[in-house]
Protein backbone atom coordinates (compact mmCIF):
# COMPACT_ATOMS: atom_id res chain seq x y z
CA UNK A 1 0.00 0.00 0.00
CA UNK A 2 1.25 3.47 -0.89
CA UNK A 3 0.17 6.35 1.34
CA UNK A 4 0.53 9.96 0.19
CA UNK A 5 0.60 12.98 2.53
CA UNK A 6 0.24 16.69 1.70
CA UNK A 7 3.17 18.23 3.56
CA UNK A 8 5.11 21.42 4.16
CA UNK A 9 8.47 19.67 4.17
CA UNK A 10 10.29 16.50 3.22
CA UNK A 11 10.67 14.78 6.62
CA UNK A 12 8.55 12.69 8.94
CA UNK A 13 8.75 15.57 11.43
CA UNK A 14 7.52 18.12 8.86
CA UNK A 15 4.10 19.65 9.34
CA UNK A 16 1.25 18.49 7.17
CA UNK A 17 -0.05 21.03 4.64
CA UNK A 18 -3.80 21.24 5.23
CA UNK A 19 -4.37 22.34 1.64
CA UNK A 20 -4.57 19.90 -1.18
CA UNK A 21 -4.42 21.94 -4.40
CA UNK A 22 -1.67 24.25 -3.24
CA UNK A 23 0.24 21.84 -1.04
CA UNK A 24 3.99 22.41 -0.99
CA UNK A 25 5.07 18.76 -1.09
CA UNK A 26 3.79 15.25 -1.32
CA UNK A 27 5.45 12.60 0.75
CA UNK A 28 4.63 9.06 -0.36
CA UNK A 29 5.26 6.15 1.98
CA UNK A 30 5.27 2.59 0.75
CA UNK A 31 4.45 0.37 3.72
CA UNK A 32 5.94 -2.76 2.14
CA UNK A 33 9.28 -1.47 0.95
CA UNK A 34 9.27 1.20 3.72
CA UNK A 35 10.47 3.59 1.07
CA UNK A 36 9.64 7.30 1.15
CA UNK A 37 9.36 9.42 -2.00
CA UNK A 38 9.20 13.21 -1.84
CA UNK A 39 7.57 15.23 -4.58
CA UNK A 40 8.01 19.01 -4.77
CA UNK A 41 4.72 20.65 -5.78
CA UNK A 42 5.80 24.30 -5.44
CA UNK A 43 5.44 24.80 -9.19
CA UNK A 44 1.73 24.16 -9.03
CA UNK A 45 1.43 26.30 -5.93
CA UNK A 46 2.12 29.29 -8.16
CA UNK A 47 -0.68 28.54 -10.64
CA UNK A 48 -3.36 31.24 -10.76
CA UNK A 49 -6.12 28.85 -11.80
CA UNK A 50 -6.92 25.20 -11.54
CA UNK A 51 -4.30 24.28 -8.94
CA UNK A 52 -6.58 21.48 -7.68
CA UNK A 53 -6.83 19.34 -10.83
CA UNK A 54 -3.17 20.01 -11.70
CA UNK A 55 -2.02 18.78 -8.30
CA UNK A 56 -4.33 15.79 -8.55
CA UNK A 57 -2.70 14.68 -11.82
CA UNK A 58 0.76 15.07 -10.30
CA UNK A 59 -0.36 12.95 -7.36
CA UNK A 60 -1.80 10.35 -9.72
CA UNK A 61 1.64 9.89 -11.27
CA UNK A 62 3.01 9.01 -7.82
CA UNK A 63 0.58 6.11 -7.84
CA UNK A 64 -0.70 6.14 -4.24
CA UNK A 65 -3.62 4.11 -2.91
CA UNK A 66 -4.44 6.53 -0.13
CA UNK A 67 -4.18 10.28 0.38
CA UNK A 68 -3.98 11.87 3.82
CA UNK A 69 -4.58 15.61 3.99
CA UNK A 70 -6.20 18.45 5.97
CA UNK A 71 -9.47 19.88 4.71
CA UNK A 72 -10.01 17.65 1.76
CA UNK A 73 -9.74 18.45 -1.93
CA UNK A 74 -12.23 20.82 -3.56
CA UNK A 75 -14.74 19.76 -6.20
CA UNK A 76 -12.50 19.56 -9.27
CA UNK A 77 -9.59 17.83 -7.56
CA UNK A 78 -12.04 15.53 -5.79
CA UNK A 79 -13.35 14.39 -9.17
CA UNK A 80 -9.87 13.49 -10.36
CA UNK A 81 -9.03 11.55 -7.19
CA UNK A 82 -12.28 9.66 -7.35
CA UNK A 83 -11.65 8.76 -10.95
CA UNK A 84 -8.11 7.71 -10.08
CA UNK A 85 -9.45 5.49 -7.32
CA UNK A 86 -7.43 7.16 -4.57
CA UNK A 87 -9.05 6.98 -1.13
CA UNK A 88 -8.97 10.27 0.76
CA UNK A 89 -8.66 10.69 4.54
CA UNK A 90 -8.94 14.16 6.10
CA UNK A 91 -8.47 15.93 9.40
CA UNK A 92 -4.68 15.71 9.64
CA UNK A 93 -4.04 19.38 8.85
CA UNK A 94 -2.43 20.31 12.16
CA UNK A 95 -0.25 17.23 12.66
CA UNK A 96 3.25 16.29 11.70
CA UNK A 97 3.50 13.66 8.98
CA UNK A 98 4.44 11.07 11.58
CA UNK A 99 1.44 11.89 13.76
CA UNK A 100 -0.78 11.78 10.69
CA UNK A 101 0.40 8.28 9.82
CA UNK A 102 -0.19 7.10 13.39
CA UNK A 103 -3.64 8.67 13.43
CA UNK A 104 -4.44 6.93 10.16
CA UNK A 105 -3.21 3.54 11.38
CA UNK A 106 -5.32 3.93 14.53
CA UNK A 107 -8.42 4.75 12.47
CA UNK A 108 -8.54 8.29 13.86
CA UNK A 109 -8.99 10.02 10.49
CA UNK A 110 -12.21 10.59 8.64
CA UNK A 111 -12.63 9.03 5.22
CA UNK A 112 -14.46 10.95 2.50
Amino acid at each position, binding site marked *: MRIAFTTKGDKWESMMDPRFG*RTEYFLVYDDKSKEVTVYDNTDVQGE*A*HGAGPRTATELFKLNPDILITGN*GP*GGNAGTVLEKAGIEVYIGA*GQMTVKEALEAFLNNKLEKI
Partner: protein
Amino acid sequence: MKEIVVISGKGGTGKTSITASFSVLAGRDAILADCDVDAADMHLLLEPDFANPGDFYSGEVSEIIEDKCTQCGECMKVCHFDAISLIDAKHRIDPVSCEGCGYCTHVCPENAIISRELNVGKCFVSSVKTGTKMVHARLGVAADNSGKLVAKVKNEAKELAVKLGKKYVLVDGSPGIGCPVTSSLTGADFVVLVTEPSVSGVHDLKRLYELVKKFRIPAGCIINKADLNSKTSQSIIDYLKEENILYLGSYKYDLAFTRAMTEGKTIVEWDGANSISLSIKESWEKIKESLL
Protein backbone atom coordinates in the same frame (compact mmCIF):
# COMPACT_ATOMS: atom_id res chain seq x y z
CA MET B 1 -1.36 27.92 15.87
CA LYS B 2 -5.01 28.37 14.84
CA GLU B 3 -6.30 30.13 11.78
CA ILE B 4 -9.51 32.16 12.03
CA VAL B 5 -11.13 33.46 8.87
CA VAL B 6 -13.85 36.13 8.81
CA ILE B 7 -16.14 36.19 5.76
CA SER B 8 -19.50 37.68 4.81
CA GLY B 9 -20.46 37.04 1.21
CA LYS B 10 -21.43 40.52 0.11
CA GLY B 11 -19.79 43.68 1.45
CA GLY B 12 -21.27 46.23 3.80
CA THR B 13 -21.92 43.96 6.76
CA GLY B 14 -19.13 45.40 8.89
CA LYS B 15 -16.83 42.43 8.39
CA THR B 16 -13.61 44.42 8.17
CA SER B 17 -14.42 46.60 11.20
CA ILE B 18 -15.14 43.48 13.21
CA THR B 19 -11.98 41.68 12.06
CA ALA B 20 -9.91 44.75 12.94
CA SER B 21 -11.52 44.82 16.39
CA PHE B 22 -10.60 41.17 16.94
CA SER B 23 -7.06 42.08 15.88
CA VAL B 24 -6.88 44.70 18.62
CA LEU B 25 -8.23 42.23 21.19
CA ALA B 26 -5.77 39.55 20.08
CA GLY B 27 -2.89 42.02 20.16
CA ARG B 28 0.50 40.36 19.93
CA ASP B 29 -1.04 36.88 19.92
CA ALA B 30 -2.09 37.09 16.28
CA ILE B 31 -0.61 37.60 12.85
CA LEU B 32 -3.06 39.39 10.56
CA ALA B 33 -3.81 38.72 6.90
CA ASP B 34 -5.95 40.92 4.67
CA CYS B 35 -7.41 38.72 1.94
CA ASP B 36 -10.33 40.99 1.06
CA VAL B 37 -9.04 41.54 -2.43
CA ASP B 38 -11.84 43.80 -3.64
CA ALA B 39 -11.70 46.13 -0.67
CA ALA B 40 -8.46 45.76 1.27
CA ASP B 41 -9.43 48.25 3.96
CA MET B 42 -8.00 46.83 7.15
CA HIS B 43 -4.89 48.99 6.82
CA LEU B 44 -7.04 52.09 7.34
CA LEU B 45 -7.63 51.03 10.95
CA LEU B 46 -4.36 49.34 11.86
CA GLU B 47 -1.69 51.74 10.59
CA PRO B 48 0.69 49.39 8.81
CA ASP B 49 4.08 50.72 7.68
CA PHE B 50 3.92 49.07 4.21
CA ALA B 51 7.27 47.42 4.83
CA ASN B 52 8.96 44.65 2.80
CA PRO B 53 7.11 45.21 -0.48
CA GLY B 54 7.33 42.36 -2.98
CA ASP B 55 5.98 42.25 -6.52
CA PHE B 56 3.07 39.97 -7.14
CA TYR B 57 2.52 38.22 -10.44
CA SER B 58 -0.64 36.49 -11.58
CA GLY B 59 -1.79 35.39 -14.98
CA GLU B 60 -0.12 36.02 -18.31
CA VAL B 61 -0.49 38.09 -21.45
CA SER B 62 1.06 37.48 -24.83
CA GLU B 63 3.30 39.86 -26.73
CA ILE B 64 4.52 39.90 -30.33
CA ILE B 65 8.22 40.45 -30.88
CA GLU B 66 8.06 42.80 -33.86
CA ASP B 67 11.45 41.90 -35.34
CA LYS B 68 10.56 38.25 -35.64
CA CYS B 69 7.01 38.71 -36.96
CA THR B 70 6.40 38.21 -40.68
CA GLN B 71 2.80 39.47 -40.44
CA CYS B 72 1.42 36.14 -41.65
CA GLY B 73 -1.78 36.54 -39.62
CA GLU B 74 -2.00 33.01 -38.20
CA CYS B 75 -2.23 34.28 -34.63
CA MET B 76 -5.17 36.54 -35.41
CA LYS B 77 -7.11 33.65 -36.90
CA VAL B 78 -7.00 31.57 -33.72
CA CYS B 79 -7.51 34.21 -31.04
CA HIS B 80 -11.03 33.88 -29.63
CA PHE B 81 -10.88 37.05 -27.57
CA ASP B 82 -10.43 39.58 -30.39
CA ALA B 83 -7.18 40.60 -28.75
CA ILE B 84 -5.10 40.63 -31.92
CA SER B 85 -5.65 43.22 -34.61
CA LEU B 86 -3.91 44.58 -37.64
CA ILE B 87 -2.97 48.19 -37.03
CA ASP B 88 -0.85 50.05 -39.60
CA ALA B 89 -0.08 46.74 -41.31
CA LYS B 90 1.28 45.29 -38.07
CA HIS B 91 -0.19 42.59 -35.89
CA ARG B 92 -0.62 43.77 -32.33
CA ILE B 93 -1.97 42.29 -29.10
CA ASP B 94 -4.15 44.41 -26.86
CA PRO B 95 -3.06 43.47 -23.33
CA VAL B 96 -6.44 44.37 -21.80
CA SER B 97 -8.36 41.96 -24.08
CA CYS B 98 -5.76 39.20 -24.03
CA GLU B 99 -6.94 36.31 -21.89
CA GLY B 100 -3.48 34.78 -21.66
CA CYS B 101 -4.60 31.48 -23.13
CA GLY B 102 -1.42 31.05 -25.16
CA TYR B 103 -3.15 29.68 -28.27
CA CYS B 104 -1.39 32.20 -30.51
CA THR B 105 2.04 31.28 -29.17
CA HIS B 106 1.52 27.70 -30.33
CA VAL B 107 0.51 28.56 -33.91
CA CYS B 108 3.01 31.28 -34.72
CA PRO B 109 5.37 29.77 -37.32
CA GLU B 110 8.15 32.21 -36.38
CA ASN B 111 7.94 31.76 -32.61
CA ALA B 112 7.45 35.48 -32.50
CA ILE B 113 5.00 35.50 -29.60
CA ILE B 114 6.07 35.30 -25.98
CA SER B 115 4.07 35.16 -22.76
CA ARG B 116 4.81 37.63 -20.05
CA GLU B 117 3.70 37.23 -16.47
CA LEU B 118 1.53 40.10 -15.33
CA ASN B 119 2.70 42.19 -12.42
CA VAL B 120 -0.61 42.88 -10.73
CA GLY B 121 0.41 44.53 -7.50
CA LYS B 122 2.49 44.51 -4.38
CA CYS B 123 2.42 42.41 -1.26
CA PHE B 124 3.58 43.79 2.11
CA VAL B 125 4.59 42.42 5.49
CA SER B 126 3.93 45.41 7.73
CA SER B 127 4.25 46.20 11.39
CA VAL B 128 0.93 47.47 12.72
CA LYS B 129 -0.11 49.48 15.75
CA THR B 130 -1.24 46.44 17.73
CA GLY B 131 2.39 45.39 18.05
CA THR B 132 2.23 42.57 15.55
CA LYS B 133 2.60 41.97 11.80
CA MET B 134 0.07 42.13 9.00
CA VAL B 135 0.40 40.62 5.53
CA HIS B 136 -1.56 42.56 2.92
CA ALA B 137 -1.56 43.45 -0.75
CA ARG B 138 -2.29 46.36 -2.99
CA LEU B 139 -3.53 45.37 -6.41
CA GLY B 140 -3.37 47.45 -9.55
CA VAL B 141 -6.40 48.43 -11.58
CA ALA B 142 -8.17 45.54 -13.32
CA ALA B 143 -5.92 43.00 -11.64
CA ASP B 144 -7.10 39.43 -11.57
CA ASN B 145 -8.18 38.73 -8.00
CA SER B 146 -7.33 35.07 -8.22
CA GLY B 147 -7.09 32.53 -5.46
CA LYS B 148 -3.35 32.69 -5.93
CA LEU B 149 -2.98 36.07 -4.26
CA VAL B 150 -5.13 34.99 -1.35
CA ALA B 151 -3.09 31.80 -1.00
CA LYS B 152 0.13 33.81 -0.99
CA VAL B 153 -1.02 36.34 1.60
CA LYS B 154 -2.32 33.61 3.88
CA ASN B 155 0.72 31.47 3.48
CA GLU B 156 3.12 34.25 4.40
CA ALA B 157 1.01 35.06 7.43
CA LYS B 158 1.02 31.45 8.55
CA GLU B 159 4.73 31.01 8.09
CA LEU B 160 5.33 34.14 10.12
CA ALA B 161 2.99 32.93 12.84
CA VAL B 162 4.88 29.65 13.11
CA LYS B 163 8.24 31.40 13.10
CA LEU B 164 7.25 33.88 15.80
CA GLY B 165 5.31 31.32 17.81
CA LYS B 166 1.97 33.15 17.61
CA LYS B 167 -1.31 31.64 18.75
CA TYR B 168 -3.54 32.87 15.93
CA VAL B 169 -3.65 33.89 12.31
CA LEU B 170 -6.58 36.24 11.83
CA VAL B 171 -7.78 36.56 8.24
CA ASP B 172 -10.09 39.19 6.76
CA GLY B 173 -11.53 36.91 4.08
CA SER B 174 -12.52 37.49 0.47
CA PRO B 175 -15.98 38.48 -0.75
CA GLY B 176 -18.28 36.41 -2.94
CA ILE B 177 -18.42 32.65 -3.26
CA GLY B 178 -15.86 32.15 -6.04
CA CYS B 179 -12.24 31.08 -6.22
CA PRO B 180 -10.79 33.75 -3.82
CA VAL B 181 -13.11 32.83 -0.97
CA THR B 182 -12.38 29.14 -1.51
CA SER B 183 -8.71 29.99 -1.10
CA SER B 184 -9.51 32.01 2.03
CA LEU B 185 -11.18 29.00 3.59
CA THR B 186 -8.60 26.31 2.80
CA GLY B 187 -6.65 25.43 5.89
CA ALA B 188 -8.78 27.44 8.32
CA ASP B 189 -9.58 26.18 11.82
CA PHE B 190 -12.59 28.38 12.41
CA VAL B 191 -14.81 30.51 10.20
CA VAL B 192 -16.64 33.60 11.43
CA LEU B 193 -19.63 34.49 9.24
CA VAL B 194 -20.76 38.10 9.53
CA THR B 195 -24.30 38.76 8.35
CA GLU B 196 -27.10 41.29 8.68
CA PRO B 197 -30.84 40.70 8.94
CA SER B 198 -31.81 41.78 5.43
CA VAL B 199 -33.19 39.71 2.57
CA SER B 200 -29.88 39.81 0.75
CA GLY B 201 -27.92 39.19 3.95
CA VAL B 202 -29.77 35.96 4.69
CA HIS B 203 -29.54 34.88 1.06
CA ASP B 204 -25.75 35.39 1.04
CA LEU B 205 -25.28 33.71 4.42
CA LYS B 206 -26.92 30.52 3.26
CA ARG B 207 -25.05 30.35 -0.02
CA LEU B 208 -21.79 30.95 1.77
CA TYR B 209 -22.42 28.35 4.44
CA GLU B 210 -23.02 25.75 1.74
CA LEU B 211 -19.42 26.34 0.72
CA VAL B 212 -18.09 26.28 4.30
CA LYS B 213 -19.81 22.95 4.88
CA LYS B 214 -17.86 21.37 2.04
CA PHE B 215 -14.66 22.26 3.89
CA ARG B 216 -15.93 20.83 7.18
CA ILE B 217 -14.63 23.77 9.16
CA PRO B 218 -16.41 24.71 12.41
CA ALA B 219 -18.23 28.01 12.02
CA GLY B 220 -19.68 30.80 14.13
CA CYS B 221 -21.94 33.66 13.13
CA ILE B 222 -22.33 37.31 14.12
CA ILE B 223 -25.54 39.16 13.28
CA ASN B 224 -24.65 42.81 12.80
CA LYS B 225 -27.32 45.56 12.86
CA ALA B 226 -29.58 42.90 14.39
CA ASP B 227 -32.25 45.31 15.67
CA LEU B 228 -33.03 46.65 12.18
CA ASN B 229 -35.24 43.65 11.67
CA SER B 230 -35.66 41.55 14.79
CA LYS B 231 -37.92 39.05 13.05
CA THR B 232 -35.31 38.20 10.44
CA SER B 233 -32.61 38.16 13.13
CA GLN B 234 -34.59 35.54 15.02
CA SER B 235 -34.99 33.45 11.89
CA ILE B 236 -31.22 33.63 11.38
CA ILE B 237 -30.67 32.41 14.95
CA ASP B 238 -33.02 29.50 14.23
CA TYR B 239 -31.10 28.70 11.06
CA LEU B 240 -27.81 28.70 13.02
CA LYS B 241 -29.23 26.18 15.48
CA GLU B 242 -30.42 23.93 12.68
CA GLU B 243 -27.03 23.98 11.00
CA ASN B 244 -25.03 23.68 14.20
CA ILE B 245 -23.32 27.03 13.69
CA LEU B 246 -22.08 28.66 16.89
CA TYR B 247 -24.05 31.84 17.59
CA LEU B 248 -21.49 34.52 18.42
CA GLY B 249 -23.85 37.37 19.20
CA SER B 250 -26.09 40.10 17.82
CA TYR B 251 -24.75 43.64 17.49
CA LYS B 252 -26.92 46.75 17.56
CA TYR B 253 -27.31 49.09 14.61
CA ASP B 254 -25.09 51.90 15.81
CA LEU B 255 -23.17 54.69 14.11
CA ALA B 256 -20.39 54.24 16.65
CA PHE B 257 -18.68 51.85 14.22
CA THR B 258 -18.46 54.59 11.64
CA ARG B 259 -17.46 57.28 14.12
CA ALA B 260 -14.58 55.14 15.30
CA MET B 261 -13.58 54.41 11.70
CA THR B 262 -13.57 58.11 10.85
CA GLU B 263 -10.95 58.56 13.54
CA GLY B 264 -8.96 55.65 12.17
CA LYS B 265 -9.81 53.48 15.14
CA THR B 266 -11.57 50.23 15.78
CA ILE B 267 -14.62 50.49 17.96
CA VAL B 268 -13.00 48.60 20.84
CA GLU B 269 -10.28 51.24 21.04
CA TRP B 270 -12.61 54.16 20.47
CA ASP B 271 -14.99 53.30 23.29
CA GLY B 272 -14.34 50.07 25.12
CA ALA B 273 -17.52 50.46 27.15
CA ASN B 274 -19.81 50.82 24.14
CA SER B 275 -22.36 48.01 23.95
CA ILE B 276 -20.96 46.84 20.60
CA SER B 277 -17.43 46.78 21.99
CA LEU B 278 -18.66 44.59 24.82
CA SER B 279 -20.43 42.30 22.35
CA ILE B 280 -17.30 42.03 20.22
CA LYS B 281 -15.24 41.09 23.28
CA GLU B 282 -17.79 38.44 24.14
CA SER B 283 -17.70 37.02 20.59
CA TRP B 284 -13.91 36.91 20.67
CA GLU B 285 -13.94 35.00 23.97
CA LYS B 286 -16.40 32.50 22.49
CA ILE B 287 -14.19 31.98 19.44
CA LYS B 288 -11.09 31.43 21.58
CA GLU B 289 -12.96 29.01 23.79
CA SER B 290 -14.22 26.92 20.89
CA LEU B 291 -10.67 26.63 19.58
CA LEU B 292 -9.34 25.10 22.79
